[in-house]
């Protein structure tokens, strides 16, 4: 932290031309390894899609869910991915609003996770439907059936929350990409030029355009924060609104939001490390970024522990017979191993790594984050399944175990998420070039807007030679 306080914006001290060359390289050059990676992802992920079609044609019975455990892997994955989506927009919006200078190389990585995790997560409520093809009945539109969706249902709230969040975070991601796409456009030829001309939306880099971008980003950062918080609160209400023992709890809203931010930061650290390694961005994503995010993760880890403790203590102290059945199945029953694995993954392993300064290196934070991502998936599973296995009447208790159908679809969507990210990294510079160029933050002042010669030249109506800067 000390470095960026004394020397804001100078954390990355590289020539603008080098920055541009490094970060635009993947856009112009595709390696053979890249094609191989895409092929592998498609090959592993595609079966998931066919299995989903199989599930639709055969009936949901091919999955492991049964009575009374009507929700299983699919809803677990839904909550998990929506949680991961809190990586980006929320963190990036907070960092932007706080003017944290070190955020610059991090924000785009994070915002992209949000959009893609939402795109994947939002598929699960549809995949899990008995009649998936009728999912659009959740959308309020004047239909020939003459009825609207039931606005009292948390699932309808979900629909609104997620569609708002995905619209907002997509805008939040795309707005700052426009100047970067314009930069690609100015350097490209042929088909690529035509494509990026469309994508850049006629960006010319005039002071007025910079000013508008700046204002728009500020508005988006402020509006996206309450949206992000509300989205995961509403996801938690899917559970808290139903009178199921251990679901029906007021703590679920904040508990889910904290867990979402926790898993989101962890996912961000893992993704950043992979991007850094694969795209050779060692000079941009530095140990200090991992250190700072690691500290944030440390705080969230403690907060998570507090929530899990608070939730469990109130249930145990209240000693309601119906709740205790689910409680003991987690603490001393069939789910005990999973519970303690979760505690290890989310606290016992990451806490010392993140707390001890010497261990909070890139490798250290990545190890901690990987266990947290896995641990948070277990947490979601433990929220969804054990209470459903132990509802009020003991003769209705059941057991859930997933089938190959659920597992294949889960793997498929994970591959889908990685694939979306990999494709994104190909078409968009993974670090916002214009934001990175220290001290060149756009201002409405014309004399400062010539920070990049291209934009100044464009403003004056000069053609730009693609090699000149």
């Amino acid at each position: 932290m000390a470095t960026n306080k004394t020397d804001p914006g100078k954390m990355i001290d590289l020539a603008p031309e080098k920055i541009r060359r490094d970060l635009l390289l993947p856009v112009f050059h595709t390696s053979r390894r890249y094609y191989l990676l895409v092929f592998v992802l498609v090959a592993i992920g595609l079966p998931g899609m066919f299995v989903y079609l199989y599930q639709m044609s055969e009936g949901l019975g091919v999955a492991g869910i049964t009575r009374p455990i009507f929700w299983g892997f699919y809803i677990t994955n839904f909550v998990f991915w929506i949680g991961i989506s809190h990586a980006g927009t929320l963190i990036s919006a907070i960092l932007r609003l706080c003017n944290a200078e070190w955020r610059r190389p991090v924000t785009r990585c994070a915002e992209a996770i949000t959009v893609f995790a939402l795109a994947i997560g939002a598929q699960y409520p549809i995949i899990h439907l008995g009649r998936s093809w009728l999912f659009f009945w959740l959308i309020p539109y004047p239909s020939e059936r003459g009825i609207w969706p039931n606005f009292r249902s948390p699932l309808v709230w979900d629909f609104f929350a997620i569609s708002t969040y995905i619209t907002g975070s997509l805008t939040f991601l795309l707005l700052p990409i426009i100047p970067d796409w314009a930069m690609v456009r100015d350097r490209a030829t042929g088909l690529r030029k035509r494509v990026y001309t469309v994508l850049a939306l006629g960006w010319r880099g005039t002071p007025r355009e910079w000013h508008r971008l700046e204002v728009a980003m500020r508005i988006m950062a402020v509006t996206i924060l309450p949206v992000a918080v509300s989205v995961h609160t509403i996801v938690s209400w899917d559970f808290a609104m139903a009178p199921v023992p251990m679901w029906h709890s007021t703590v679920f809203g904040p508990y889910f939001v904290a867990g979402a931010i926790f898993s989101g930061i962890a996912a961000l650290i893992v993704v950043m490390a992979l991007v850094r390694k694969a795209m050779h961005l060692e000079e941009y994503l530095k140990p200090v970024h991992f250190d700072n995010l690691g500290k944030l993760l440390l705080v969230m880890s403690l907060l998570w522990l507090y929530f899990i403790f608070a939730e469990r203590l109130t249930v145990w102290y209240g000693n309601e017979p119906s709740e205790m059945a689910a409680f003991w199945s987690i603490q001393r029953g069939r789910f005990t191993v999973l519970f303690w694995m979760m505690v290890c993954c989310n606290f016992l392993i990451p806490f010392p790594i993140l707390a001890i300064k010497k261990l909070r290196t890139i490798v250290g934070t990545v190890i901690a984050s990987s266990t947290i991502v896995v641990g948070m998936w277990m947490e979601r599973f433990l929220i969804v399944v054990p209470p459903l296995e132990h509802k009020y009447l003991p003769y209705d208790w059941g057991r859930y175990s997933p089938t190959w159908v659920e597992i294949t679809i889960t793997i498929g969507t994970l591959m889908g998420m990685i694939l979306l990210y990999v494709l994104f990294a190909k078409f968009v510079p993974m670090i916002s070039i214009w934001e990175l160029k220290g001290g060149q933050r756009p201002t409405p002042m014309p004399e400062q807007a010539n920070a990049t010669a291209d934009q100044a030249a464009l403003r004056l109506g000069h053609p730009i030679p693609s090699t000149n800067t």
Partner: protein
Amino acid sequence: MAHRWGMVIDLDRCTGCEACVAACHAENNIATISASEAARGRTMHWIHVERYWEGEFPNIRARFRPVLCQQCDAAPCEPVCPTYASYHNPEGLNAQVYNRCIGTRYCANACPYSARYFNWFDPAWDKPLQLQLNPDVSVRESGVMEKCTFCSQRILAAEIKAKTENRELRDGEVKPACVQSCPPTAMVFGDLNDRHSEVSRLSRSVRATTLLAEVGTLPKVTYLERESSHGDE
């Protein structure tokens, strides 16, 4: 005055014979489930009889409680349905509109009695049961939720008949399949809004209890508890 259909089940009379279960299957076109699926917990019985053991050996007794949809006044299954497939009809029944159901199964999670059943596959019947499907009841396709309707087709038929004969429905005129087939007449069905109906009278008995009253669902199925636990049979 609108009807408010309710049921009373006398636990002193129930012998656990499961005639109600068989009658319900026949009346309501409930699919038969294969043994392997049943082992996975996917049985479908809109009404089922739960057996409890009471006492210590050798003074042990089997106790029975038929459980069906409790047709709650404050039904947790209704507000959670995003498409109004599960809704409260004007006669107080928790109706399930199969064609509106998209299969979120949220209602089934919310139901404290687990009285809702999901069609995991398209329905099938063990031969020759497919030949005796009830034409008054729709069959349900794969992916939708179903549950006890209090034999709404019988209620409707009786109401239409009374209307054509220009008279009020008589108490006991409507009998769901389970009530009709109960050999010890442990089950009584009728209008709770009619203070003189048998069901209304019995539901005010001192023995009247409801299942999981603490959840606050206000069921319209009332159980008459046993008068003594031992030696009365």
